[in-house]
C-alpha cells in the first residue's frame, strides 16, 4: 500500500489515518488549515488514480544464470584485425546518407579518454545485452577483454572483414554486406559487481562503490532480466547494424562469455519537435545535464582521479540499467490532466506545469504547496532543483521498448532506462529514493536491469583494451 500522499492535489492530508473519525465524504483537514481553503477545494475535486489496491508484481521467474564451466578455446580470429581498409578517426560517418554521426559531444575517437558511446547522442536503435563470464582463469578473462575491445574497435572502424581462407567460416556474418560501414556503431561496455568474486581473484579489486542492484520498494526484479558480469550496449542508426555487431561479438566470444539477458530499444524521433517521447507519450530526458559542458561531465559523470575509487578507474563512469515496464493500457485509461499531474509536464508540449516552453526551469520555490506542480510529480521528486539536489543529477539515456505481449494479451512495453554518474549512491540511488511511492509507481514496474562500471577509454593507445587496469 502506498504511503499517504503528501500532495494536496492527490488525496491530501492523511486520509487513511487510523485515528481519524469516520467522516465519509469530508475532505481530511490538516492541522492549521480550514477545510474551506483553496487547497482543500482542490483536493475535493481532484481525483487521482493512484492505485489504492493491493500491491502486486510481475512475477519472478527463472533462476539466475550460473556461470558454468567451459573450456575456453578462443578462435584464432579473436585477435585478428579486419584486413583491408579501415576508417580513420574523425567525425565522418558512413552508414548511409541519412545517418547521424556517432561521435560524442566531446570526442570522436574510439581510443579517447572515455568510452565513445557514453556521451554519444542516443541512436534510433539499441540492444542492451548482459553477459556472464564463463572463462575460468584470470588469463582467459584478460583474453576476453582484449577480444571484446578488438571486436568493438573493428566494428566501429569498419572495412573489409578478414578472410580466413576457403576452409574456414567467414569472419564476418555478412549482414551489412561485404564491407562493414565505418563509424556506424557505438558501444558502451560495463562490468558488474558479480565479476569481482573468487573466480578471477578480483575480490580485492572491486570498485569501492559498485554494488549489486537491489530491489527498491516498488520493484519486481526478474532474475532472468537482471544483473550480469558484463553489460554491452550497442547503439546504431539501423536495426541491422545493431544485430550485426551483436552477432559479431557473440561469435567471437562464445566459450568465454554467455549472454544472460537482452533487451532491444528504440529512440523515437521528435514528435513534432524537441525532446523525444517515451511510450507514455511524454517527452523524456528534457532536463539532462549538458554533455557539451566538460565541467558538468566532470562533476556528474566521470569518476574523478581523487575519490573513493582506484586511479585506474578515473574517466570511467557508473552505468545504471533499469527495465521499466509500463502498464500502457492502464495509463491510456487515465485522464490527460491526471497524467500531467503525475509527470509534472504538459503532455502535448513538454512544458513544466508552470512554464511556457519545454526547457523552462520549474520554479518550485514559488509553489511550496504543490498547487501547480504536485509535490509528488515525477519531475519534481526526481529533480527538486535545489542546491542540495544539484549533485545528484544524472545523465539519462532512455530508450523505448516494445517486446510483445504479456500472458494475458496486455502489451509489454516500457522504458529501457540507462543513466550515467560518477557515484551510484549519491546520484541514481539518491534520486530513486526520492521516487519511492510516487504516484507514477502505480503505472510502471521495474522488472530488471543492473549496475555496472564502465571502464575509462583507451587513452589513445590502439593496443589497449577496456578494463586493462583490472587484469
Amino acid at each position: 500500500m502506498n504511503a499517504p500522499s503528501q500532495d494536496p492535489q492527490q488525496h491530501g492530508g492523511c486520509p487513511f489515518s487510523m485515528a481519524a473519525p469516520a467522516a465519509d465524504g469530508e475532505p481530511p483537514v490538516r492541522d492549521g488549515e480550514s477545510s474551506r481553503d483553496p487547497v482543500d477545494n482542490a483536493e475535493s475535486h481532484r481525483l487521482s488514480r493512484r492505485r489504492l489496491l493491493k500491491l502486486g508484481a510481475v512475477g519472478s521467474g527463472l533462476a539466475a544464470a550460473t556461470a558454468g564451466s567451459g573450456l575456453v578455446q578462443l578462435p584464432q580470429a579473436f585477435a585478428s584485425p579486419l584486413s583491408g581498409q579501415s576508417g580513420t578517426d574523425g567525425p565522418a560517418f558512413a552508414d548511409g546518407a541519412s545517418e547521424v554521426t556517432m561521435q560524442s559531444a566531446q570526442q570522436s575517437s574510439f581510443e579517447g579518454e572515455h568510452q565513445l558511446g557514453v556521451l554519444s547522442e542516443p541512436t534510433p536503435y539499441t540492444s542492451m545485452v548482459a553477459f556472464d563470464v564463463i572463462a575460468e582463469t584470470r588469463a582467459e578473462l584478460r583474453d576476453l577483454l582484449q577480444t571484446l575491445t578488438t571486436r568493438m574497435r573493428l566494428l566501429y572502424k569498419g572495412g573489409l572483414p578478414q578472410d580466413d581462407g576457403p576452409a574456414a567460416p567467414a569472419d564476418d556474418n555478412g549482414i551489412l554486406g561485404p564491407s562493414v560501414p565505418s563509424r556506424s556503431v557505438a558501444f558502451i561496455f560495463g562490468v558488474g559487481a558479480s565479476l569481482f568474486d573468487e573466480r578471477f581473484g578480483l575480490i580485492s579489486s572491486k570498485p569501492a562503490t559498485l554494488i549489486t542492484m537491489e530491489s527498491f520498494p516498488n520493484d519486481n526484479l526478474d532474475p532472468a532480466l537482471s544483473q550480469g558480469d558484463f553489460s554491452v550496449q550497442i547503439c546504431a542508426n539501423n536495426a541491422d547494424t545493431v544485430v550485426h555487431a551483436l552477432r559479431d561479438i557473440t561469435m567471437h566470444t562464445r566459450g568465454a562469455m554467455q549472454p544472460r539477458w537482452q533487451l532491444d530499444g528504440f529512440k523515437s524521433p521528435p514528435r513534432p519537435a524537441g525532446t523525444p517521447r517515451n511510450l507514455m507519450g511524454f517527452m523524456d530526458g528534457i532536463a539532462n545535464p549538458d554533455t557539451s559542458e566538460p565541467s558538468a561531465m566532470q562533476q556528474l559523470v566521470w569518476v574523478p582521479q581523487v575519490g573513493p575509487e582506484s586511479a585506474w578507474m578515473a574517466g570511467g563512469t557508473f552505468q545504471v540499467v533499469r527495465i521499466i515496464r509500463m502498464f500502457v493500457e492502464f495509463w491510456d485509461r487515465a485522464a490527460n490532466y491526471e497524467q500531467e499531474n503525475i509527470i509534472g509536464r504538459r503532455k502535448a508540449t513538454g512544458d513544466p506545469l508552470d512554464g511556457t516552453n519545454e526547457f523552462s526551469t520549474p520554479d518550485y520555490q514559488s509553489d511550496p504547496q504543490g498547487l501547480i506542480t504536485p509535490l509528488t510529480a515525477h519531475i519534481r521528486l526526481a529533480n527538486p532543483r535545489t542546491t542540495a539536489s544539484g549533485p545528484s543529477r544524472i545523465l539519462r539515456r532512455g530508450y523505448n521498448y516494445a517486446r510483445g505481449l504479456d500472458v494475458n494479451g496486455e502489451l509489454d512495453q516500457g522504458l529501457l532506462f540507462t543513466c550515467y554518474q560518477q557515484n551510484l549512491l549519491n546520484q541514481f540511488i539518491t534520486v530513486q529514493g526520492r521516487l519511492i511511492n510516487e504516484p507514477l509507481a502505480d503505472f510502471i514496474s521495474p522488472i530488471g536491469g543492473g549496475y555496472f562500471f564502465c571502464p575509462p577509454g583507451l587513452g589513445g593507445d590502439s593496443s589497449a583494451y577496456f578494463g586493462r587496469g583490472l587484469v
Partner: protein
Amino acid sequence: MTFAAGGVAQGQAQDHLSGGTNTTLVTVSSTACAPGWRAPRSGRTVVTVENVTAATIYEVDLVGANQTSLYGEIEMLAPGTKDTMDVVLPPGRYSFTCNAFSGAVLRSAVEQVSGPPVSGTFSFTPVDAHQLQLATSAYRASVTQWLQRLGSATAALESAVKSGQLAHARQLWLPAHLDYERLGGAYGAFADFNEEINATPLSLQGGVTSPYFTGFFALEYGLWGGQTTSQLSPTAVALDQAVHSLIAQFPRIALVPGDLALSTYQILENTLQYEMTGETDEGSNTNLATAWANVEGTQMALNALGPVLRQSRPGVLPRLQQDLATMAAAFKAYEAPDGTWEPLQSLTTSQHESLDGQLGGLLGELSVVPELLQPLQPATGSS
C-alpha cells in the same frame, strides 16, 4: 472526448467528425474570466486558455447555459501559462466559469454557439458533494455486512487449521478469501490492515520467505505448498485477528469518496494485471474465482454510486451494470457444482482471450466513471 481518429490521417478524422476544428483563445485573470470571448461555430473547438495574471487560477470550466453541464475543464493554471480544452460544442449558449486564487468565482458573458448540430459531444453534470457522501455511506453499510461474514469465515478457517484439518482448511480458505476480494473499494482505507490480510509476496523483499508475508496468501502458500497445520497455525490466528481488528476499527476509518469512485475501475485493473496473469496464485489455482469476486466488488461500489452517476450522466449506469453482470457470469461459468474452480492454466487460448478481451473492454467503459463523479464546485459569486 469520443471522436475516433482511427486511421493514419488524423486530420481527416477530425474533419469527418465535426467539419473542421475551430480554435479559440481566451484569457483569464484574478479579475476577469474570458473577457470578450467570441463563440466559435458548432463542432470541435480547441480552446486555448491563457492565465495573464500573476496568480494561479484554480479552475476554468466551459459550461452550458443551464450552468450545470460541463463541456471543458482546466485545473491549476499557473501564472503566464496556457492550457487547452478540446471540446465538441453543439449549438447553444455557453459561458466560462473561473475559480480564482482568492476563492472568488467569476463568470464570463454568455455567448451563442451557432451552426449545424454535431455528434460526438461529451458533457457531464458535476455531482453534488452531499450525494457523494450518501453514496459512500451506502458503500460503508455493504462493506460492514461483508466484513461480518468475512469474520465468521476466517474464524472457521482458523479453527480448522488449529484442529489439524488440512483438507477442510483448504475448502474454507477460498470462500473466506473471496469475501475479502469483494472489498476492493475500501482497500485504500484499510491501509495497513490490507497489508496484513492480503499482501502478495511479489512486492516483498525475499518474497515468500519475508517475515512480512502474512495473511491469505501466506496461508494459501502453506496450505497448498506442503506445510503442516501446526506450522500454519500462527498465520491462521494472525489472519483472523487482523480481520477482527479491522471489523472493530472500521466504524472509525474514513472512506474517501474519490477513492470509491476510482475503485470502480481500479479493482478490475488489478484483476487484469494480477489475476489474469496468474501472478497472485500461491497454489490454490483460484485466480478465476478471485476475478469473479472482484467483479462483484466492482458492482458493489458502482451500486452505491448509482444514484450519483445517474445524476451526472443518465444512461451510463444501466449499460455498465449490464456489462458487469455479463462479466461476472463469464467468470462464474468456470465454477464447478462442487464449488471448485477451473485453474487459470487450464483455459484454452480462446477462453483466455475471451475473458481478457471482455475485461479490457469493460475497463475502457469504466475508466470514465471517476471523471463523471467529480463534485460540483461551490458557486459563490459572479462577475
